[in-house]
């Protein structure tokens, strides 16, 4: 399939000549396939919203190219780009009712009145705002305004749907429901869409692929299971996952048939060559220092494990236990889907298996190996 949206080495610099030049987006290149749902994920100030605004046309591109459906768009006015956008700050027209606001988006399409009314009804049902269609924006709640704004974007026929934090203001229960419906709608109609979020649960639930951004740089662009199983670098590893990966600085000690990782002021983990394959050993090379990581869900708790650690907190959430243990002066978090009976201050045996180990270069922070394979 051909790429629908394509960004080529896009840069964004704010106040380029001023003293406080801000390089918000750096050499960003990515392709979004037709019908694909892509999330831009990152903490605040990572450049995700700047990227979105450049695609929608509200922000000029400092350098690089953006094309949509094989057409260069980076110099077109927003209205000429055939992009529908839902804003985070809702931005409904106050003198129009919710219904008129949504229908307004269809004005340019020259549709019959009955067709407009049918479409408005359909999208209003989807986001559960039917009862408030005839109210004015200032008479409805923030969450309702957000849903109306979402409806106004979705009702259009556009080559690309751009959604800025589409569900930030909604109640958790409703959010879960709308996620499912939104995903089905986007998939059924093969609507290419790109949305910004800081909430990875939302990104996981909606997106086919997730672009993790930090400091204006695209860190990794992959489906969520790849981000989790094979994070490209330490940033992604410690950002993705709820809770994210445990990482520790370690010294590598090679001895006959065995590789040992010694944590700074902490325990050592030794793995025989039968566990830690040649591919991984080669990836480590002759580095003396690495960063090792293990996801909380992969930390093995219970008897049979060699090391023990003191429990700092143990929290049961109804369907999983989160146990934090003091290891090498930091917290090692373990998550179990069964209930763990351990009080604060207890010693608990734990272990890490070779296939769950992630190894990173301490200087470049780039991943060297995941489990049995080199990165």
């Amino acid at each position: 399939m051909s790429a629908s949206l394509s960004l080529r080495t896009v840069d964004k610099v704010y106040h380029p000549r001023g003293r406080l030049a801000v390089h918000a987006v750096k050499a960003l290149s990515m392709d979004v396939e037709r019908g694909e749902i892509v999330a831009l994920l990152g903490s605040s100030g990572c450049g995700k919203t700047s990227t979105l605004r450049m695609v929608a046309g509200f922000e000029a591109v400092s350098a690089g190219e953006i094309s949509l459906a094989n057409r260069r768009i980076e110099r077109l006015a927003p209205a000429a780009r055939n992009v529908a956008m839902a804003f985070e700050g809702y931005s409904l027209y106050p003198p129009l009712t919710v219904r008129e606001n949504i229908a307004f988006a269809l004005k340019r399409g020259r549709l019959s009145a009955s067709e407009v009314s049918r479409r408005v009804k359909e999208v209003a049902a989807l986001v559960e705002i039917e009862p408030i269609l005839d109210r004015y924006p200032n008479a409805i709640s923030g969450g309702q305004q957000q849903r109306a704004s979402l409806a106004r974007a979705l009702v259009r026929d556009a080559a690309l749907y751009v959604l800025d934090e589409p569900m930030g203001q909604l109640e958790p229960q409703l959010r879960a429901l709308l996620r499912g419906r939104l995903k089905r709608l986007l998939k059924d109609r093969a609507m290419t869409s790109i949305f910004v979020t800081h909430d990875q649960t939302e990104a996981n639930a909606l997106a086919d692929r997730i672009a993790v951004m930090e400091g204006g740089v695209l860190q990794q662009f992959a489906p969520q299971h790849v981000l989790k199983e094979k994070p490209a670098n330490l940033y992604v590893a410690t950002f993705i996952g709820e809770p994210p990966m445990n990482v520790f600085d370690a010294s590598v000690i090679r001895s006959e048939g065995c590789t040992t990782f010694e944590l700074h002021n902490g325990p050592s983990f030794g793995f025989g060559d039968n566990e830690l394959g040649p591919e991984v050993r080669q990836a480590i090379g002759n580095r003396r220092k690495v960063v090792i990581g293990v996801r909380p869900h992969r930390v093995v708790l219970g008897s049979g494990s060699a090391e023990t650690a003191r429990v700092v907190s143990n929290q049961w959430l109804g369907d999983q236990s989160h146990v934090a243990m003091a290891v090498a002066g930091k917290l090692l978090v373990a998550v179990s889907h069964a209930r763990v009976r351990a009080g604060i201050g207890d010693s608990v045996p734990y272990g890490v298996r070779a296939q769950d180990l992630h190894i990173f270069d301490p200087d470049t922070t780039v991943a060297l190996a995941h489990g049995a394979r080199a990165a």
Partner: protein
Amino acid sequence: MERSSIIERVLRAVLLTLIVIFFLFPIVWILLMSFQTNEQILRIPPSLSFVPTLENYKALISGHLLTSAGSLDIAFMRNLGNSVLLSTCAVVLALILGVPAAYAFARFKFWLSEDIAFTLLSFRFAPPLLVLLPLSLYFQDLGLVDTYVGLIWVYQLIALPLILWIVRGYFEDISPDIENAYRIAGHSWLRTFFKIAVPLAGPGIAAAGLLSFIFCWNNFVFALVLASADKQPVTVGALAFVTASGIQYGQVAAAIVLSVTPTLLLALYAQRWLVEGLSLGAVKG
């Protein structure tokens, strides 16, 4: 968009210059006039070239006005002093009364609170001339005519509603939680008012003070009727330049320059208080 061509920038500069000239022209013209004699000002056709003279300023400061009809004593410097005294006292009084009142109106909803606040504002709607006649009658009964106390009292009526309504808005913008947090930390409400509310509304109080100072300074009618020569402010004192032998334009211009200076200096001084947006970053961003 930050990409602007050279033509755009040149055009922008030209436009800005035109606007500045348009708005500053009267002020510049008066400044030039103040350094000319009446004859130079009134010559036809007018000319921009003249030999500057300090005669007008000398006459004002010494208090001797030399006109073609003879010499005349004027009390301009005394008038200026009166203006400073009256406006300053009135604004200080209005701040002392108005800031706590504004806080009360902002924070507490009591019986008739909105009506009282509106009544105070309505003082500003009434045409001064309408109020003047009953006021001067009362003042005669009370013996307040031609006293500083009486004038300050009238002047603060100009300042109070302004201060009340501007400062009230600033108090309302302060999150009550900031004050609640200080109360819970163990401080009395009075301390909370002085340590939290007043500093945070500082820019608003400064703006309201400055604005009401200007209003007081520019007042004419009240002082004209209620004050005699030795208590008149500059606005009334300027009438003296309309003499039997004609209007002394040079001195009028110099008087304007001198009387604008205090307010201008005050505004420049207060500017940093006005700009400083203290309340930013108080609650989550």
